[in-house]
């Protein structure tokens, strides 16, 4: 990426901003924002009203983005770490979310599928689902770190089996929870008009920021991702770092799975969190993180996650049916990935230089 090093003077400030990793997602966000402003300004309208429980809530496309983007942001945190450490992505997150959501419902409902009251405190259900999701993360981690299987193939196992396991946990029944306090976590806490998932996401961001600030996790992860054998020579344990990143992703999956089931108070095994692995990987890629591992920037990934949700909401506003969404997103992924390959970058750079020199000649 040492592109514009010899260029003195003129666009120095510009190139400095351009070279920041966080530039890519913010530029994409601005582009989308301007597109929506031109297309239909009412996209930005936020209305204040009351939901059917009589609580004050804000609604509108922007609030939607904040709401659903938060799930993605939490996943993006874990996915960034996995990408950086192992050089591959976990494609089982959607299936793992189905499992953890199913566990939450199973614990809350006990043996009855339509309980009048909750059979266990919500916090207990959440903690159990955390443990389960971390176990599945550990399963992926063991395959990747100790059996040295490519991450995407290793997680393919859980990708296939996950939804089946989720259905099996609840005997393929669809439990419904009627207790309103369960819905707060994926909806609104009475009296607060901002969706709760946003607060959960902020909490996760603060925790990961503190962890990165006060431990060596970030440094070690990057070291393992950049060069595994040299990090081993420096006394790190690469296998354990990779394993740890998958367990952390498991925790993130548990949180998002909990939000997901709380949103609907029920679960649909084949539909819940469908295609979310694509969005999570897209968020990491859009954040400018190299998908082959190494350096990472979690805040860029988080912004990337909100940009993806912005894109999804825009596509919905354009009346694209939800089944057809993946096709459009796939095109975006391909464009992004193609633009970030070294070969294309070099080519664009040369083109840019040629244009520059032509301009100078014309001026002269």
């Amino acid at each position, binding site marked *: 990426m040492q592109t514009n090093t010899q260029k003195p003077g003129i666009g120095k400030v510009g190139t400095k901003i351009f070279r920041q990793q966080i530039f890519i997602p913010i530029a994409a966000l601005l582009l989308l924002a301007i597109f929506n402003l031109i297309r239909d300004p009412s996209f930005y309208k936020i209305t204040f009203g009351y939901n059917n429980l009589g609580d004050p809530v804000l609604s509108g496309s922007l609030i939607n983005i904040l709401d659903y983007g938060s799930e993605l942001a939490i996943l993006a945190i874990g996915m960034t770490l996995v990408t950086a450490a192992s050089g591959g992505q976990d*494609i089982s997150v959607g299936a793992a979310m189905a499992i953890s959501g199913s566990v939450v419902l199973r614990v809350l409902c006990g043996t009855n599928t339509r309980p009048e009251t909750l059979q266990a405190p919500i916090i207990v259900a959440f903690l159990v689902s955390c443990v389960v999701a971390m176990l599945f993360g550990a399963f992926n981690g063991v395959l990747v770190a100790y059996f040295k299987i490519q991450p995407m193939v290793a997680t393919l*196992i859980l990708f296939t*089996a996950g939804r*089946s396991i989720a259905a*099996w946990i609840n005997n393929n029944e669809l439990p419904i929870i009627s207790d309103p306090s369960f819905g707060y976590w994926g909806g609104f806490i009475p009296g607060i008009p901002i969706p709760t998932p946003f607060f959960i996401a902020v909490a996760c961001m603060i925790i990961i920021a503190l962890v990165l600030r006060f431990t060596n996790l970030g440094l070690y992860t990057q070291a393992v991702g950049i060069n595994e054998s040299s990090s081993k020579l420096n006394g790190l344990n690469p296998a354990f770092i990779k394993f740890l990143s998958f367990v952390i992703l498991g925790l993130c999956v548990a949180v998002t799975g909990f939000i997901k089931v709380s949103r609907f108070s029920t679960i649909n095994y084949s539909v819940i969190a469908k295609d979310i692995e694509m969005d999570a990987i897209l968020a990491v890629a859009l954040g400018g993180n190299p998908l082959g591992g190494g350096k990472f920037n979690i805040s860029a990934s988080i912004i990337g996650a909100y940009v993806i949700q912005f894109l999804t909401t825009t596509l919905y506003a354009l009346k694209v049916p939800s089944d*057809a969404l*993946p096709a459009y997103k796939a095109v975006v992924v*391909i464009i992004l990935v193609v633009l970030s390959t070294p070969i294309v970058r070099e080519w664009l750079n040369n083109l840019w230089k040629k244009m520059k020199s032509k301009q100078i000649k014309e001026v002269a």
Partner: protein
Amino acid sequence: MSANESSAKSGLGDRFKNMTDTNLLLTITIVVFFVMYIGAIVFQGKGFLKPQTFFNILNANAALIITSCGMSLVMITGGIDISVGGVVALVSMCCAVYLDYHGGNIFVAVLIALAIGLAFGIVQGFLVAYLDIQPFIVTLAGMFFARGMTTIVNTAPFNVQNEAFVALKETRVIVPGLGSVNKNGVYVNAYIEIGVIVALLTVIIMFCILRWTKQGRSFYAVGGNNQSALMLGINVKRTKFLSHLICGLLAGVGGFVYFLHVGSGSPSHASGMEMNAIASSIIGGTLLTGGVGNIAGTLFGVLSLSTIQNIVSSAGLDKAWWTGITIAAMLCLFLVIQSIVMSRKKKSR
């Protein structure tokens, strides 16, 4: 391990150690398949003794055999392609729409199928080989694109009524001498569908290409070690490109065969087929890291996989989730076996 030690232990163990990677994994696969089939006969009763049971497995999985051949080729070259399921769904939907709404003839439908497969192969191959993007990312996007396009072409599933097509679909090829007597005492001929013939032809052609042509050997060379393949004067980029192109083409062929078997178009068709194809290739002894693999093994991989599915469904565990879990468990088992075998081999060298 020193030479003295290994020669002291003569016989089977020694031969096992001197086997090439390809043959070792192939042997494991074939043994597993026969053990499983014999186990099925012993525990599940006589249903599995009838030749028609075996032919039915072939009939239902002809498309999977074809796509798995392409998948094995890509994996031997060191890549992976998870778009095949999506391509199969897209092909069957496009052919269905063309045949039903536009009343077209079958040859054009075959051409459509091939064109779609080829287009996916060319684009993905170009991105992987010449722009050096991770194959998994490219084909993941390909898979989502294909699935999305399928629903854009048509949302609702429907059956094709085209007469010429239905006639082709109903065509049965009778296998002489392997029929059986049914409950009413009438002799019923054993049959296979046209798709099976296409699948077996594909297997034979791919086997010959990989074993006896120069291009075939260069697939192995590139998968084994990029650098040394380059030094041997092999065009690495073109080889990778070709592998994805052939895989895409075979996905198109497999799509048509699948369509011929089910006779309808639906966005949910072939869901999870990429997974089954990868699992079959891995069970068939193709190494994920590339350079090792055998098309004959892939055929046995598909057969093992579908046999276990048959066992699961005939054992009364007919709940939908068991199939997913058994396939995943089997895949997991074989991945671990591969990993262990390979690391042991490395150590003993």
